[in-house]
């Protein structure tokens, strides 16, 4: 007797779920897939937090919106995630921050060919015209704004060292724009090495810079995770008063020090991890409003100064 009852239970559950999914299909829920890199770096941690936060808020606001969020540690996993979303979740739209442009181009193109709405975030695809909506930060402006700050605010003949990120086209764009902004000025770039957007690597590279150059007036750390490592190396050498450090992306600890007018950290340049929120929100609006949501949306990089720092401070974000 008992055994028979136990066997009935899963069958009843299966029948129930069939009915439920039939009901769901009827009231036309829109499913939006979101595929982003996993949180292995401060900036990506912030981006993950903003993505989750936005999804929770939108799901609470709109009953007929459903989200599938997946995070991937490499391009291969991301491609599988997207295939799974198409095959098993029947998504209506995809918001994707490609881990790398080339390997993600064809899989995203396939999603588009299935007639889904595609939003590409930050890193573009290798082929133009695939996505409906493109939301990105401005890497050129990111480098240019920092370069212009150095050009206009450092003394004549000032010596600058640069910490680059992981060798990528994105890093090249930033560094090229930075150099272009300084071109023709009387400021000198002494050295550029890769700190790989990593605190420990940046710490090591900065220690070596400090050993190599007796005179350094400014450091472009290009990323706030790297700036933390740089600041430690400078403190160890006891040369805090000699140089200013400009990071980037607006980490909350750095922004709060700018709010307090720390002379070592005069400014920062934004590259908001919240850009994923803009992308998800605009994609959602495409389904719940009549506003046209296609095209390109570039979030420009702003200079964070002690005067405006407060509006860039998010105490709850992990970044």
């Amino acid at each position, binding site marked *: 007797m008992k055994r028979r009852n136990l066997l009935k239970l899963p069958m009843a559950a299966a029948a129930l779920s069939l009915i439920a999914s039939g009901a769901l299909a009827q009231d036309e829920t829109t499913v939006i897939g979101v595929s982003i890199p996993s949180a292995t770096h401060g900036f990506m*941690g912030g981006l993950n937090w903003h993505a989750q936060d936005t999804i929770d808020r939108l799901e609470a606001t709109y009953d007929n919106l459903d989200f599938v969020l997946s995070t991937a540690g490499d391009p291969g996993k991301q491609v599988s995630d997207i295939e799974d979303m198409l095959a098993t979740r029947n998504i209506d739209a995809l918001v994707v921050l490609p881990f790398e442009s080339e390997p993600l181009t064809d899989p995203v193109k396939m999603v588009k060919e299935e007639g889904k709405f595609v939003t590409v975030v930050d890193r573009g695809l290798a082929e133009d015209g695939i996505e409906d909506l493109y939301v990105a930060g401005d890497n050129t402006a990111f480098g240019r704004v920092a370069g212009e700050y150095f050009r206009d605010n450092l003394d004549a003949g000032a010596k600058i060292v640069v910490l680059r990120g992981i060798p990528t086209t994105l890093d090249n764009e930033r560094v090229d724009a930075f150099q272009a902004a300084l071109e023709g000025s009387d400021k000198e770039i002494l050295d550029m090495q890769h700190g790989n957007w990593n*605190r420990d690597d940046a710490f090591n590279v900065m220690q070596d810079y400090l050993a190599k150059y007796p005179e350094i007036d400014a450091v472009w750390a290009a990323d706030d*995770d790297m700036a933390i490592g740089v600041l430690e190396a400078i403190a160890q050498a006891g040369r805090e008063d000699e140089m200013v450090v400009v990071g980037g992306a607006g980490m909350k600890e750095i922004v709060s020090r700018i709010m307090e007018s720390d002379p070592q950290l005069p400014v920062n340049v934004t590259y908001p991890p919240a850009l994923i929120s803009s992308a998800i929100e605009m994609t959602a609006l495409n389904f719940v409003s009549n506003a046209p949501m296609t095209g390109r949306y570039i979030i420009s990089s702003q200079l964070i100064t002690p005067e405006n720092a407060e509006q860039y401070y998010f105490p709850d974000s*992990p*970044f």
Partner: protein
Amino acid sequence: MKRIDLHLLGPLIALIGLFILGALLNPAFLAPANLSNVLARSAFIGLIAVGMTFVITQGGLDLSVGSMAAFLAGITIMAMNALVGVTGENWGTILLGMGVALAGGAMAGYVNGALITKARIEAFIVTLGTMGIFRSLVTWLADGGTLSLDSGLRSIYRPVYYGGIGWITWPIITFAIVAVLGEWVMRHTRFGRHVEAIGSNDRVARYSAVDVARVRLLTYVLLGTLVGLATILYVPRLGSASGSTGVLWELEAIAAVIIGGTALKGGRGRVWGTVVGVLILSMIDNILNLTDLVSPYLNGAIQGVIIVLAVVLQREKRAAE
């Protein structure tokens, strides 16, 4: 007259060569502050590599140490931040944090070792698994961001990395002591001899009444504890841990062990060689940063060439034996 054992000296020759090269390329290389930096940086990988020498010598492998270091740094910081409300901002809290790091390391090592020896799963597979587990756990604990140590504790704890006797800082002293002890244990204790015996032939070792499983398990616990010790020195440096802490440390530690002349298939371990290997690796990094010899894109390639060369140097000498 005893013939000079050239194949033993391979890595040492490479290290001396690098040292001379560094001094010729940039006089700043020999400044005490620079040497102190390079040695202190080497200490993390160095401590881990000493433990790794025992694991590899007994024929095992541990791929999880980098992730384990990140995880231990994470729980150490969280424990101290939680304790500061109870015990206050003082050395007591920091000592408790250090205890968490050491105990956590020993426990993590025990888990690895128990899965390998008791559940009889290949070391490569077990530690590949725990590598992913530890890395995910620290990312999860940090909520994808960074765990930072309470700033009051930070300033008390800071001298553990930056302070010392003159320019010989605590990480250097710790590394030196552990290296000497490690060499002594490997050469002159029963444990060390058992480790080598198991690595060269575990069946013969078992017939010779060596408790193979127990010795193997102990090498993983030793390695875990040393990872904990490395964490104790790492946390005061930047006062933080995140998902990107300790990435690829396991490969650096394994590379240092192999450069130092320990056989990857086990049976012969040289702790002093491992120390030389660690120094070679971090010195290349330093020299490349101090000079503009090659494009920064090629730094990895230069390191790769020197790793292979150091090992080739030994192999040739061994074949000529």
